[in-house]
């Protein structure tokens, strides 16, 4: 059953078609990698999938519901309830400790609950570092806090933008292991990446070029498995 469907979606900035008549269907529990060179439309697609922006044309169906014409306020509520965001630069609030950074997402969703926030940190192996400020954490640890923050409201989809772009190999592997575990648990994942190694871990790889989908490939590793 499809979780998300883009139907003939275009995003036009002046005379530039950042996305041009793109159609894409993503199933529940699927791990999708979106790859492509700079300017190919990856960020635009991520913004539209993440309800941070609206398409100029076409439809975006989430769980069968068309959200492309919703007001900005409704979109904010929708993305808050359904989507967890992971950023390349982590974007943690530097005066709040790890657990408080996770609780911020709870606060704007429902009610902050420190116990739940600690459990989310435990899922990414950071419970022991819960009271540390971002400046006291390594890049990989900060990214894991960011993932815990994305997970805290039990979203239907994790949308990660270059999640390993600022990490060394060891931390990249830790983050990918977390994604693998989440995928096994049935979480839907969309990872936007430049890194072929990260892309190779996904079930399906969609390549974008000049706002078009140039290829949509099922990862053989998963078909064999």
């Amino acid at each position, binding site marked *: 059953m499809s979780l998300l469907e883009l139907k003939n979606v275009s995003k036009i900035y002046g005379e530039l078609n950042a996305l041009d008549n793109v159609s894409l269907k993503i199933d529940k529990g699927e791990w999708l990698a979106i790859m492509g060179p700079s300017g190919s439309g990856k960020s635009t697609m991520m913004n539209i999938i993440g309800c941070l922006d609206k398409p100029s044309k076409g439809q975006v169906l989430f769980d069968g519901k068309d959200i492309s014409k919703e007001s900005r306020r409704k979109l904010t509520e929708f993305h808050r309830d359904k989507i967890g*965001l992971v950023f390349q630069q982590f974007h943690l609030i530097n005066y709040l400790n790890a657990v408080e950074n996770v609780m911020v997402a709870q606060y*704007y969703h429902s009610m902050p609950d420190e116990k739940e926030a600690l459990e989310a940190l435990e899922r990414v192996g950071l419970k022991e570092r819960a009271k540390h400020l971002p400046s006291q954490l390594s890049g990989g640890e900060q990214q894991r806090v960011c993932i815990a923050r994305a997970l805290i409201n039990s979203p239907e989809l994790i949308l990660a*933008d270059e999640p390993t*772009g600022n990490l060394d190999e060891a931390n990249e592997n830790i983050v990918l292991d977390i994604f693998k575990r989440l995928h096994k648990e049935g979480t839907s994942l969309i990872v936007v990446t430049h890194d072929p190694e990260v892309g190779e871990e996904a079930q399906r790889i969609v390549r974008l070029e000049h706002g078009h989908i140039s290829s949509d490939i099922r990862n053989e590793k998963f078909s064999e498995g």
Partner: protein
Amino acid sequence: MFFRMVRGTFVRQWKKLLMIALTVALGASIATAMLNVMLDVGDKINEELKTYGSNITVIPQSEAVMNKLYDVENGETQDEFLNEDKLGELLTIFWANNITDFAPETDAQVLLDGNEVKVVGSWFAHHFEYEKKGTTYTRDTGLINLRSWWDIKDGQWMDESASDSDRYAMVGCQLADKNNISAGDSITLKGSRGEEVLTVSGIYESGDDEDEYIYTTLSAAQRLTGTQGLLKKIEVSAITSPEDELAVKAARDPSLLSGDEYDLWYCTAYVSSICFQIQEAIPEASATAVRQIADSEGKILEKTELLMTLITVLSLIGAALGISNLVTSGVMERSIELTLLKAVGAKNGQVTFLVLTEVMATAVVGTAVGYLMGYVFAQIIGETVFNSAIEMNGMAAFIVAVLILFVTLLGSIPAIRLLLRLKPSEVLHGGH
């Protein structure tokens, strides 16, 4: 969580918030000082001008009619009198507490060493008591207050409390020079009905016609003219409100006022309403404003208030601009953080509320500090300009609080507009 975020901002952005607090404090201090001085300045200027004499003259009504008929001011040709017994009625009027000083007068031409001179009988430092319907009205008053600018060149003011005060006089400096009179000398005055031998307690310089006069007690002057119990006029010094359109309309004819206008006019300390009330209390009297002083009071007060209002408005505009710059730069510095809040689900209203809470909390601290600074400024102005303390007004504190709230919100508008334009899609990506 909300307060942890607010606290975090206070810890992290304390320099910026301190600048906002100082900007607010500066605006609040000037507004506090100006408003308190403005609310107190009416009485202060009135008090200041009262030192230059009376502002209401009460004369017999019949004399006033003749003066009006022949267009004479303070005409003294009529042999009309007021009854001294009615003097206390002044203290029974609605605005009696605004009457700071008053003194009865009777005058006459008398002979001094064969030359005609003017003698004026009045009170110097008089303790007055008046009883009516079981109430005792008292006032310590006299020329010592109403002629505070007199320069005593020789001797001293007459001591009216002395048992033989009736035997003393004060002589104007020009008359004293002409007649070679010094303090302690005896002079003999011959009036139409009697003769008085008086000791000169002091020689004064007034700078006007009074330098040619002799001042003595009311009773001594009355004996000289045979007018015991009678008065030529009463000088009244009252604290008044500045004249406005209503006062001008009422001054023409109070009967032209509507019921509401009449009540407002009657219950406001306009010089015209005080005159009206004096005439109600002493029907045979005509009370008129000494226009020059009354007008000066109104004009000085209006101009002073206008100047202070302008300073207050300018200081608040300055504060609003300062707040605007500081809050906007603060939001720009925190754009990633604030956009992140939107990205994790915060609505525009929630992020705006967070920023406004931080700014308003800072403004509250700034206002409190500014109020204290304003108190000090007001006292400095009071001591420097009026030689007296400025009374702090609760209403001024309320007005300052409301103004600062308004100015802070106004100054935050550009920052809020910027905040509303922040889009997670534009700020948070690593840049593809």
